[in-house]
């Protein structure tokens, strides 16, 4: 804090602190507190609120875990969806990493600077289009009698149309697509700082390509990988539009569960409790990843 005052002077520092206070307090913490409050109450009609039925309870938080039976490996519905979301988000993260790594490597170390600049610009274009439209295009593409099946069938690769949208394929493809950039840019930034000579040196020593990547490139890109993984995981876990449009009911996402508690069931306390559990877990995941990969907070932003 004293550094702030030293660097920016009293007036400026106070102005900035006031701005941050407005954002953090009036726009985040205090409004959230309303929902936190909700999450510790039973679900009541508006009439009953503050009445005799109203009391503080941890019930909504406990609800997610009620019926979890580790002995028989049996989980209640919401919890299963929750686990599936965590697993699915991890899978999306991993696929994103696989898909982006070669491209990021190409951009950072193989392509000419002009080409890289151009490709980076191109990468961003699809993300200017409304998420609903973008995802809906995938629905059209992947539909049972959609163009993908038609083309594959015409090429003789498949005999009968494939239901891409009924398994997890739709969600995985759509989400990987939606969050690509959040993996691409951290990876690219990390790889860009790798000295090309290191690769050449390793190659001179006779290392095969895969080993160069495994021993030289990937270790160097570790902070980028960590940051990308955190971003994608978090976005995937809290994504709503993609699973709603491309997911089959079998790949229901936890956010959809939260929404259905909020809307279909009009159970706000439970919905908020679930949302805060998700929020807490995402924060925990970030901290864990940062510990595991030894990246500092400051790296996250890059």
């Amino acid at each position, binding site marked *: 804090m004293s550094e702030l005052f030293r660097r920016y002077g009293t007036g*400026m520092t106070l102005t900035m602190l006031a701005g941050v206070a407005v954002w953090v307090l009036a726009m985040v913490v205090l409004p959230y507190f*309303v929902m936190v409050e909700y999450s510790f109450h039973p679900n009541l009609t508006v009439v009953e609120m503050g009445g005799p039925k109203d009391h503080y309870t941890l019930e909504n938080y406990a609800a997610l875990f009620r019926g979890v039976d580790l002995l028989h490996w049996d989980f209640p519905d919401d919890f299963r969806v929750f686990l599936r979301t965590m697993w699915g988000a991890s899978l999306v993260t991993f696929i994103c990493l696989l898909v982006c790594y*070669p*491209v990021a490597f190409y951009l950072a170390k193989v392509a000419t600077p002009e080409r890289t600049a151009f490709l980076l610009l191109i990468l961003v*274009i699809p993300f200017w289009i409304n998420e609903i439209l973008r995802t809906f295009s995938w629905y059209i593409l992947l539909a049972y009698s959609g163009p993908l099946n038609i083309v594959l069938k015409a090429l003789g690769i498949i005999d009968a149309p494939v239901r891409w949208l009924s398994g997890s394929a739709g969600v995985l493809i759509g989400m990987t697509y939606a969050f690509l950039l959040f993996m691409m840019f951290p990876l690219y930034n990390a790889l860009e700082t790798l000295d090309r000579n290191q690769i050449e040196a390793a190659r001179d020593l006779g290392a095969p390509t895969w080993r160069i990547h495994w021993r030289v490139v990937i270790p160097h890109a570790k902070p980028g990988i960590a940051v990308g993984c955190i971003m994608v995981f978090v976005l995937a876990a809290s994504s*709503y539009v993609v699973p709603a449009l491309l997911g089959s009911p079998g790949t229901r996402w936890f956010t959809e569960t*939260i929404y259905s508690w*909020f809307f279909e069931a009009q159970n706000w306390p439970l919905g908020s409790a679930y*949302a805060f559990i998700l929020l807490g877990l995402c924060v925990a995941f970030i901290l864990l990843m940062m510990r595991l990969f030894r990246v500092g907070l400051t790296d996250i*932003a890059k």
Partner: protein
Amino acid sequence: MQASRASDRLLQIYLGVFLVYLFLPLVIMAAATFNTSRFPTVTPWLGTTTRWFEALYNDAGMWVALENSFIIGFFVILVSVPLGVAAAVVLNGVHARARSLLYAVMVSPLLTPGVIIGISTLVFWDRLGVKGGLHLAVIGQSSFITAYVMLMVLARLQRFDTSLEEAALDLGASHGQVFRRILAPHLKPAILSGAVLAFFQSFENYNTTLFTRGTDTTLTIYIASKVRTGLTPAVNALGLILILVTVVGAVAYEVMRRRESARERAALRNAERADMEALQIA
């Protein structure tokens, strides 16, 4: 060298596949615009038409929604960019322990389902007597968009050479002058891209806006409501127009940038040559 050439070739092929993956949905979306089918699809192809552009033109509700989206986006930039810059600067300057906590609070809106942000914003401000409307949508959206701006500015801030600040101070600049003349210009690219990101995040937002918008409709809300009653390719037509505008903008920017960097490189070469000559004279 041979191995490297082969793997580079493989990489290029992969890049091609990747670009196809990237643009396929856009192609589909664009193609569906010209299908007669009332449902935006390419299969079955019911005939080629441009009537969806006409439909788009005549869709008064859509234009009103688009206008609202622009208004909200504009004000979201106005709110979230200064706040995001301030947040990044403060975060960068506070003590390590406070920084972790502050960071967690600041990024939490990014991890929170939009419905929570929307409802909490609406309920909180309602208690203070502020009703829903475009202004509240701006507040609700800014609460998480500020975090995006903060992240972008923070990244740039970390590449800031603090000696520039000190140099300016040393030359007699006041703190305000240092900020205006030195730090702000350095942050400009991040601020600009933060503003662009803020606009598109705002433009695209559904869940938060749904609750805070009061009686107004934004484009995304409009599109989502169309999904319920049946989307038509008029929406695709709008998407196509937006893509084309951005592509043209991007290409123009790229051309300008290339020209500029070529000029700079040439100037640097001249300077170095001059230096060598000076040495020879000396």
